[in-house]
């Protein structure tokens, strides 16, 4: 019942064409879903930041959305939106949206008060302060949320495919299971893990590029052994 890793690898190599053929749609669903989720998280978080009452109205709904059991909701979404890309995008977005949204809202709130006050004294309006101060302040938080989100993304896509798809790692796992081929199931699992790892590394690289000042901070702390920053002090 439990195939040796060597056999899994050998079978994965034998079936590489079929695996690759089923991996591509999963990657597409993952990336498309994640992109939608990111855009939605940004827009909604900005709205919530500008209209505080919206936060109280929206957050209970968002939290409720996170309690939906994926196993139950995935077949329904497929039932409603068919076997195409759309239900996968929706499910990936559903599981990845929340951590990024929470991180962004938290990050805006973490903007240093002196910086906002100074910008206001310079004559900057609310929108200006958002772009100049609140959004950059939120970036480190956002990337923390993004790293959590991205590990859910592939799983979300696979769940959606499991519930019904023409091609994809999820449906591949399902048919391998039905054909009593645990080796091929595990081969697909290995591919999905590799996908998640790759995405995670990409997220870390993106963070390095987008938040270069955080690197400067930790480098200085490393070099001089002093406190990394005075920002956190009361």
């Amino acid at each position, binding site marked *: 019942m439990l195939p040796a890793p060597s056999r899994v690898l050998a079978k994965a190599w034998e079936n590489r064409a079929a695996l690759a053929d089923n991996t591509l749609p999963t990657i597409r669903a993952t990336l498309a879903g994640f992109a939608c989720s990111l855009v939605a998280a940004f827009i909604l978080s900005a709205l919530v930041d500008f209209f505080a009452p919206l936060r109280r109205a929206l957050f209970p709904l968002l939290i409720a959305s996170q309690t939906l059991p994926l196993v139950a909701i995935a077949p329904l979404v497929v039932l409603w939106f068919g076997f195409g890309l759309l239900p996968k995008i929706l499910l990936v977005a559903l599981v990845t949206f929340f951590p990024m949204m929470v991180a962004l809202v938290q990050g805006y709130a973490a903007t240093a008060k002196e*910086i906002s*006050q100074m910008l206001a004294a310079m004559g900057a309006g609310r929108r200006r302060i958002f772009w100049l101060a609140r959004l950059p302040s939120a970036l480190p938080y956002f990337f923390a949320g993004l790293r959590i989100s991205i590990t859910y993304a592939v799983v979300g896509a696979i769940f959606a495919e499991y519930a019904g798809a023409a091609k994809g790692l999820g449906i591949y796992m399902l048919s391998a299971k039905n054909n009593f081929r645990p080796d091929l199931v595990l081969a697909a699992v290995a591919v999905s893990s590799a996908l998640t790892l790759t995405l995670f590394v990409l997220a870390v690289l993106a963070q390095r590029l987008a938040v270069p*000042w955080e690197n400067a*901070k930790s480098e200085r702390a490393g070099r001089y052994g002093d406190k990394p*920053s*005075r920002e956190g*002090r009361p």
Partner: protein
Amino acid sequence: MTRLELRNMRKNFGALEVLAGISLHVEEGEFVSILGPSGAGKSTLFQLLTGAIRGEGEMRFDGAPLDGARFAFMPQRDALMPWRRVIDNATLGLEVQGMKRRAARERVAPLFAEFGLAGFERAWPAELSGGMRQRAALLRTVVQQRDMLLLDEPFGALDALTRAAMQRWLETMWRNHRWTALLITHDVREAVLLSDRIYVLSARPARVVREVAVPLPRPRTESTAFARKAAAIEAGILDILLGAAEPISRPSDGENR
């Protein structure tokens, strides 16, 4: 010429009376300090000036009622944006005023040497020492070319030695530029070293208990003669702050000269 003039400014936060009638004035090219105990409402006064909050009383600038963009404000701690390089922090005020980033950089770049920041234009704020951060913050403040500087305990977060060095440096800078400046501080020595005049505030609710002139010649390098005179003034101010001096300014007084 009188630039800034406050008449009987009052501010309450609910039942808490913070400012109980502050009257003061700042002349063109004058360095004036507001000195008071912690929590006296010094920062509230600056918030009134920058328009962050509203209070009762009269604020005039060049004789007309105070309108928005007169001040370049330097907040407590440096408020440098960690995500902007030093040069882009320095240009922030100009960018908010609508200047293109490139033009703003060209405007501030020549000033880096004078502010002891040459070679650090492209550094992140996290890579600077505490004193350099304050100089960068002051650079960001003065390049805005507003009519007057508001300095809110600019050196409060520095260690004692760096603070002393920064105070001397600011005194030199001020001699060269003669900015009209209003400084908030609770450091008596700092106020005496830098100011032409000092308003001493009482504990909350704040009122002006004494207006102290500092008729010491500049440059105020630490000669023995200067130190002796300065120490006498400092001692007098400390007596006012720590002793139970009677306030000479009542809310109803209006002005006190």
